[in-house]
């Protein structure tokens, strides 16, 4: 194992390199670009044996990955925001074609207003595409999650693609020490890619062909639903195996931090987690019983874990770095949905940090204080609250 100082994007490139994809098809977009630049450099230096396809758009990038993966090799790509949403159609194709492609997504705000900073609307808008989604907290987790995602997705009872999210700039362009595993260890862990099916000129076949309404369209979709459900257990299992080999144990679908005996627990996605952990420590020192649950996998959704977490506290505060216009944001809506009929614990949505607005320890502490007040009173003052709007004295 080698310790390197890597940005989140370099970590993603290393995660891809170590997983040995044979085809990379990608189109540049800030803040993702340095992932594919780093990979291009690896290939140009002969350090990575892969074909790099330069395409004219992200739609084509995913189309090329689908075609290449269908020939029986691993593929990788990376994108952000407008690139990801342009891919939308092909994302649904990739999962329906049951191709375990792995893609880095650097979460960036959608325009307008034009912005390149972090915001999770881009990937939240891909919720229903049939991709697994993991939101990472640090650069090490970025690298490791790419390797883990190939391992999980390629299992023949899963066969689903995964997007590995990083928060723009907070991870993508920030350097941290990262343990880069030895190639041999990753080779042994992942093994050779064994496709469940592939294109073969000697045995012609058409993939994804037309199915009439009376044909098994619903049955294929049901198989996909079962595979996504089975992925929960597979993620837990592979995370454990990864820990045994590499010494870094990831806590399955949700990471809990000081949730035991907590009065209020905050649910977050991505890098807000590490800020909130510090705040939890500070508040615990003052005797305020708060805890954190960092939801790593948004798809498959960790409904069992969240129901258990709800039993531990008097209140859940759900922080979203995105919004669903017309109703609360995604993590909030889905959290409430899985708790219905299982828990009466009050749940409140805090919409924060859109367009890369900084989520500081101070503002997180204020949110925790608001959550503790709700926990005491047993009642939510308002279900959805936008935190830190200009001029809002509540949060200034």
């Amino acid at each position, binding site marked *: 194992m080698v310790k390197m100082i890597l940005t989140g994007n370099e970590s993603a490139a290393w995660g891809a390199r170590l997983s040995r994809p044979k085809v990379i098809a990608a189109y540049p977009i800030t803040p993702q670009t340095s992932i594919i630049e780093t990979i291009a450099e690896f290939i140009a230096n002969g350090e990575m044996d892969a074909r790099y396809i330069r395409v004219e758009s992200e739609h084509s990038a995913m189309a090329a990955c689908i075609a290449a993966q269908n020939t029986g090799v691993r593929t990788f790509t990376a994108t952000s925001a407008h690139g990801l949403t342009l891919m939308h159609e092909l994302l649904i194709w990739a999962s*329906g*074609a*049951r191709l375990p492609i792995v893609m880095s997504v650097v979460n960036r705000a959608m325009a307008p207003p034009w912005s390149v900073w972090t915001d999770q609307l881009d990937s939240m808008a891909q919720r229903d595409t049939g991709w697994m989604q993991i939101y990472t907290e640090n650069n090490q987790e970025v690298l490791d999650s790419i390797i883990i995602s190939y391992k999980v997705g390629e299992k023949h009872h899963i*066969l689903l693609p995964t997007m590995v999210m990083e928060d723009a700039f907070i991870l993508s362009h920030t350097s941290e020490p990262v343990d880069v595993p030895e190639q041999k260890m990753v080779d042994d862990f992942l093994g050779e890619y064994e496709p*469940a*099916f592939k294109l073969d000129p000697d045995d*012609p*076949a*058409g*993939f*994804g*062909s*037309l*199915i009439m309404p009376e044909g*098994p369209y619903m*049955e*294929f979709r*049901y*198989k996909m639903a079962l*595979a996504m459900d089975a992925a929960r257990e597979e993620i837990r299992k592979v995370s454990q195996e990864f820990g045994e080999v590499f010494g870094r144990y990831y806590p399955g679908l949700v990471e809990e931090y000081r949730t035991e005996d907590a009065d209020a627990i905050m649910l977050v996605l991505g890098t807000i987690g590490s800020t909130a952990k510090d705040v939890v420590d500070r508040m615990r020192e003052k005797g305020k019983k708060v805890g954190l649950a960092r939801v790593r996998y948004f798809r498959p959704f960790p409904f069992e874990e969240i129901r258990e977490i709800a039993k531990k506290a008097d209140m859940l505060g759900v922080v979203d770095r995105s919004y669903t216009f017309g109703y609360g944001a995604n993590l909030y809506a889905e959290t409430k949905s899985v708790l219905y009929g299982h828990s009466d614990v009050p749940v409140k949505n805090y919409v924060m940090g859109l367009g890369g607005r900084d989520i500081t320890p101070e503002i997180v502490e204020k949110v925790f204080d608001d959550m503790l007040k709700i926990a005491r009173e047993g009642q939510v003052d308002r279900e959805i609250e936008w935190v830190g709007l200009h001029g809002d004295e509540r949060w200034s």
Partner: protein
Amino acid sequence: MVVLPEEPTPIAKVPSTENKTGGWRTFRPRIIYEKCIRCYICWKFCPEPAIEFDSPDAHPAPKPALAKFDTVKINYDYCKGCGICANECPVNAIEMVLEESIEEEEAD
């Protein structure tokens, strides 16, 4: 007992040519061979492609100079009747005929 397909995604082992799309047609293109100058513009434009070559002597040539060139014919198994060939034909040698009227013709 729920019956699920064995494969994870539809994998067709028969070629798509098994799917005869001629039945979709409302209008049938019909070549008027007395006008056809054998330029093959219809063959170029047909999106299916459902226009095929036939031997030069399959039909009498409108001019002796054309007699050595292949004629064209329409494969009605796949022609969807879009009418692009009739629209593109520079000498209006393709007419679009309502399928039902042909059926009536044939019945008579």
